[in-house]
C-alpha cells in the first residue's frame, strides 16, 4: 500500500518506536522503584527506632516494707478507702529510700519518676508484702533505659554496667505503652491516652459525617433538580474537599469554641471539626457510588410500583454502599492522620489521663507524635517512633477494612 516508503526506512522507524517504548517502560519502573525505596526507608527507620519503644528497662529494687512501717492495714486496701490510704501512704519516699539504700546516693535517679507506682501496685496486688522485704521490678529512668538499649551517655553506661553486674537490670515488654497516657517522664509515657482520644474523636466524626454525607449525596443525586443552584452546591463541595485542613481548624475554633462555647481540647470538638473536613469527601464518594448504580435498576423498581424512597433504600443505597463505605473509610483515615485542625482547637494540651468522656480534655495520636517529636529529652525519640508505628498500624487496618468491605459487599452484575 505505502510503497512510497522504502523498506529500510520502515525498519528504522520501527526500531525507533520500540526504543521509545522501552525508554518509557524503564522510566515507569524507575518511578516505582524510587517511591518503593522511600517507603522502605520510612518503614525501616520507624521500625528500627520504634521497636525499642515497645520494650522498657526494669530495675530489680529491693524494698524493706517491714522496716519502713507504712501506715497501712493489709486487710483494708480494697475499694475507695483503700485507694485513699494507699495514696497517702508515702510510697514515693519509700521508693527513693529503697533506691538509695540499694544503689548508693544517686540511686533514686536511676529510677523512673513513676517507679513508686509499680511499688504501690505490687502492694495492692499482694498486701502480705507489707510484713517483709521484697524485690520489686520498677521502670528505670529514661537515661538508664536508653543506655541499656545501647545509646546512652558514658555516665549512664557506667551505671548500667554496675547494675548489670548485680543482675538488677533487665528488659521487658512495655505494657505501659498501651495503658498510660502522656507524662513528663519519657520512661512512663504511653500512647493509650492519645489513641483513646483519637478513637473518641473518630467516633464523633463518623457519627456526624457519615449520615449527613450520605444523605446529602442521596439528595443531590436522586432528588435535587439540576439547575444553577445545585451546580453551585456541587462546585462548593468539590472545593471544600480541597480546602487545607488548618482552615477547618480555624472554623472549628471560631464556631465550636468561641460561638457555641464547647470545651477546649475535647474529642467532641475535635470530632466535629474533622467531620466538617470529612463530609465533603463522603459526599463526593457517595455521589460517585450512587451514580454507578445502573438506571435500569431504578426503572425496574419503579415499574413494580416502588415509591422513590423505596427505590433509594431498597435498591440504590444497598448497591452504592460498598463505594460509600470505601470513600468513608478513606476519609476517616485522612481525618485520623490530621494534626493541624486539632492544634487549632487546643487538642495539643498535656493530658496525663486517658479521656473517659467526649468532653474530657484529650489529645490525638498524630498530635501526640508531634508533641513528643518536639521534646528535648532523648527518651521521647523512640516513643515517638513507637507512636508512629501504632498510628501506621491503625491506618493500615482501616485501609485493609476498606478493601475487605469492597470485595465482600461488591455486587457482580
Amino acid at each position, binding site marked *: 500500500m505505502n510503497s512510497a516508503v522504502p523498506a529500510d526506512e520502515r525498519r528504522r522507524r520501527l526500531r525507533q518506536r520500540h526504543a521509545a517504548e522501552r525508554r518509557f517502560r524503564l522510566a515507569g519502573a524507575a518511578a516505582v522503584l524510587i517511591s518503593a525505596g522511600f517507603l522502605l526507608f520510612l518503614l525501616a527507620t520507624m521500625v528500627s527506632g520504634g521497636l525499642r519503644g515497645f520494650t522498657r528497662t526494669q530495675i530489680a529494687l529491693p524494698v524493706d516494707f517491714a522496716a519502713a512501717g507504712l501506715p497501712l492495714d493489709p486487710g483494708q486496701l480494697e475499694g475507695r478507702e483503700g485507694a485513699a490510704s494507699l495514696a497517702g501512704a508515702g510510697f514515693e519516699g519509700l521508693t527513693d529510700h529503697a533506691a538509695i539504700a540499694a544503689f548508693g546516693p544517686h540511686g533514686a535517679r536511676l529510677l523512673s519518676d513513676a517507679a513508686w507506682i509499680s511499688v504501690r501496685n505490687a502492694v495492692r496486688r499482694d498486701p502480705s508484702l507489707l510484713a517483709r522485704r521484697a524485690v520489686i521490678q520498677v521502670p528505670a529512668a529514661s537515661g538508664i533505659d536508653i543506655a541499656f538499649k545501647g545509646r546512652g551517655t558514658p555516665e549512664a553506661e557506667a551505671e548500667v554496667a554496675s547494675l548489670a553486674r548485680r543482675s538488677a537490670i533487665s528488659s521487658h515488654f512495655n505494657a505501659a505503652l498501651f495503658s498510660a497516657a502522656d507524662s513528663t517522664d519519657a520512661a512512663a509515657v504511653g500512647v493509650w491516652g492519645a489513641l483513646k482520644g483519637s478513637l473518641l474523636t473518630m467516633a464523633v466524626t463518623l457519627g456526624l459525617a457519615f449520615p449527613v454525607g450520605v444523605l446529602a449525596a442521596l439528595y443531590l443525586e436522586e432528588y435535587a*433538580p*439540576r439547575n444553577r443552584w445545585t451546580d453551585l452546591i456541587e462546585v462548593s463541595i468539590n472545593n471544600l474537599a480541597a480546602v487545607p485542613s488548618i482552615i477547618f481548624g480555624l472554623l472549628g475554633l471560631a464556631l465550636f469554641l468561641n460561638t457555641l462555647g464547647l470545651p477546649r481540647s475535647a474529642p467532641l470538638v475535635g470530632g466535629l471539626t474533622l467531620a466538617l473536613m470529612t463530609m465533603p469527601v463522603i459526599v463526593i464518594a457517595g455521589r460517585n457510588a450512587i451514580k454507578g448504580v*445502573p438506571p*435500569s*435498576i*431504578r*426503572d*425496574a*423498581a*419503579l*415499574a*413494580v*410500583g*416502588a*415509591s422513590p424512597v*423505596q427505590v433509594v433504600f*431498597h*435498591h440504590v443505597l444497598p*448497591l452504592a454502599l460498598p463505594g460509600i463505605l470505601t470513600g468513608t473509610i478513606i476519609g476517616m483515615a485522612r481525618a485520623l492522620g490530621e494534626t493541624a485542625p486539632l492544634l487549632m482547637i487546643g487538642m495539643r494540651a498535656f493530658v496525663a489521663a486517658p479521656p473517659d468522656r467526649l468532653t474530657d480534655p484529650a489529645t490525638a495520636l498524630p498530635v501526640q507524635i508531634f508533641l513528643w517529636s518536639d521534646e528535648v529529652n532523648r527518651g521521647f525519640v523512640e516513643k515517638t517512633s513507637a507512636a508512629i508505628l501504632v498510628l501506621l498500624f491503625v491506618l493500615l487496618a482501616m485501609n485493609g477494612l476498606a478493601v475487605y468491605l469492597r470485595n465482600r459487599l461488591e*455486587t*457482580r*452484575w
Partner: protein
Amino acid sequence: MTLPNRSKIEAKGVSVFYGDNQAIRDVSLNIDQDRVTAFIGPSGCGKSTFLRTLNRMNDTIAGARVEGEIRLDGDDIYASGMDVVELRARVGMVFQKPNPFPKSIYENVAYGARIHGLARSREALDAVVEQALTRAGLWNEVKDRLKDSGTALSGGQQQRLCIARAIAVDPEVILMDEPCSALDPIATARIEELIHELRGRYAIAIVTHNMQQAARVSQVTAFFHMGQLVEHGDTAQLFTSPREERTKDYITGRYG
C-alpha cells in the same frame, strides 16, 4: 376472530415533549383487554415513549411532559388524584434489556408483592412467587435454586424472571418494550409463547421492531412514524393490506 373488543386503556390526543422536542404527536389509541397490541415503526419514532406514558414512567425523565388524556378503566391516569405507585402496580412493565435486581430469584419476584402488602405470611408469599414463576414459564427451571442470584440466569431466563416479577404484583396490564431484542431466537420463541399464554389474563402492549414478531404475537398492530400514529388495526389486515402508503413502505422494507 370475534373477541369482544373491550378497551382497557384509552389514549386520546396524546402528545409527549422532551423539553422543546416533540416525540409524540396527537396519538389516539386503545389497548384492548383481550388482544395483544403491538407497536411497530422505525427506530426513534416514539414507540417506547408512547408505551412509557401508559404507566407514567416518563415522569422519571427530567423535562418530559405529557399532554392529552389517558384512561385506565375510565380513570384519567394523569389526574391529580391518581397515585403513581398504585398505577404502576396495576400497569406492569418489562424492559428491553433484562434488568433483574442483583438479588436472589425469590427476592426478585417477591419484592413487588412485599412492598404492596400482597402476602400476609411467608407461606402466602411463597405461593405468590411460585404462581408468578409458573405463569412466566420459569418455575421448573429455577424451583431448586430460588436462592441463587437472578443475575446468574441466562438472558432469556432473566427476561422471564422480569415478567414473573411484573406478574407477582397482580397487574391488569403488562407493557413490554422490545422484550426480545437482547435474546437469541430460542429464548425469543419462549417469550412469544409466553405472551400467548398470558393473553386474556392481562391486557398486553408490546413494542417491537421486528415485524414477524408483531405478526406472530399480536392481534392489533399500531404503526408509528416520526411521532405520529400512522395506522392501526387488525394485525393480519395491516400486514396484508395496509391503508397508508407509509405503512406499506415500512412493511415492505423500504425503510427501517
